[in-house]
């Protein structure tokens, strides 16, 4: 799955530059990483979910529903006790897929993407709950860090080095298809019961992508394979446009204001123009719009909490 972009050699950082960039982003997001870690600890650790359950001959609490049958059976059906069930240990595989296309450079989303990467990678490694993988995507998909390698600061620098933000296309469909393959392979390699393995993908991008219907289909497929996909839209342009130094003449640049002009034939075969809000057809169910890395721990935790609740409710626990 490793592809080298034709433009990859264009603007890569030296390892020293990458190391200092990583150190800078890691330290600027240190406090946020602690906050995110605390959020995630509460969400990811299964200890909170323990319940009294089961039918035992001895235990901590009586199961009231079993008392009448117990008496009626002349004290033969004596499994009337409940015990605290021991939560199973879950493991996690978390993939960060970062948009390496040229639009990220233009929109000044690069730095926000790197901050997000440093923040999330740091939190995950502090939690010590699982494996991290990093992809870059654009026209091609590049595997920047695989699940089986521990994510150290040196790994962080190497990941930074593999990004150019110069790829001339943003092929989200291809990235999703290859991610699903990577998740399948990683699930097979994972130790222990695969039902206790939770797979999560965070896509970090400016959000502009083509071919929404086929992307939607792949998102559905990922969901069926129990891979959670959260799309983090880094909306750096809105941050830039809102600075007081710029006049009111600067048009809205936020993805929230982006419109798509669609031409379609009507019933009479006439071309009709329709203006559609870009986000109205956005194919990802879980997406967050982040203008500042400070917002990320809160919104990310919110999305994950919602997803875990849904999975637990649907019996996946």
């Amino acid at each position, binding site marked *: 799955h490793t592809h080298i972009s034709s433009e990859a050699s264009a603007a890569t950082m030296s390892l020293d530059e990458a190391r200092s960039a990583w150190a800078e982003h890691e330290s600027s997001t240190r406090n946020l990483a602690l906050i995110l870690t605390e959020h995630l600890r509460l969400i990811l650790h299964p200890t909170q979910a323990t319940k009294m359950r089961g039918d035992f001959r001895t235990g901590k609490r009586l199961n009231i529903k079993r008392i009448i049958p117990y008496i009626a059976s002349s004290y033969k059906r004596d499994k009337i006790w409940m015990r605290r069930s021991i939560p199973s240990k879950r493991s996690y595989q978390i993939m960060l897929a970062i948009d390496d296309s040229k639009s990220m450079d*233009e929109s000044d989303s690069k730095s926000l993407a790197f901050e997000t990467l440093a923040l999330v990678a740091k939190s995950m490694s502090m939690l010590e709950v699982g494996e991290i993988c990093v992809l870059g995507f654009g026209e091609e998909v590049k595997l920047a860090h695989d699940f089986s390698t521990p994510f150290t600061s040196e790994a962080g620098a190497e990941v930074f080095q593999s990004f150019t933000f110069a790829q001339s*296309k943003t092929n989200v469909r291809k990235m999703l298809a290859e991610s699903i393959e990577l998740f399948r392979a990683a699930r097979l390699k994972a130790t222990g019961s695969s039902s206790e393995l939770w797979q999560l993908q965070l896509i970090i991008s400016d959000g502009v992508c083509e071919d929404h219907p086929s992307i939607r289909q792949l998102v559905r497929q990922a969901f069926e394979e129990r891979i959670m996909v959260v799309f983090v839209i880094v909306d750096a342009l809105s941050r830039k446009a809102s600075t007081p130094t710029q006049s*009111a003449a600067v*048009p809205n*640049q936020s993805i929230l204001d*982006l*419109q*798509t002009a669609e031409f379609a034939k009507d019933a009479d075969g006439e*071309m009709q123009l329709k*203006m559609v809000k870009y986000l109205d057809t956005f194919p990802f169910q879980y997406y967050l719009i982040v203008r500042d890395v400070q917002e990320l721990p809160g919104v990310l935790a919110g999305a994950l909490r919602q997803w875990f609740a849904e999975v637990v409710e649907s019996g996946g626990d």
Partner: protein
Amino acid sequence: MSGVNGSAQVKIQLQTKNPELQLPQEIGPILVRTGLKRLELSRLVNNLLEATQPVPLQFLINGQFLRTTIDDFLTQNGISAETTLTVEYVKALIPPQTIASY
């Protein structure tokens, strides 16, 4: 995929120097299919202007008139569809259709 209904798209920022044809300020970049030509863009701008009497328009990208699809223009000029295109529009000097004689 580069037809009107193809999936390739590009963000454009519409601009004009003509004070009569200014778009409302809140209109930012718009995503369009790269298969569009002058005629569709003209409809788009007239639609945004809410013009009762459509004004025929011509389009300039980097100072060059758009005479092909946006897709062909990008290819010929080596421009990536990842960058926002600034598209300037002017009143068409030559009417797009011959005016019927009277």
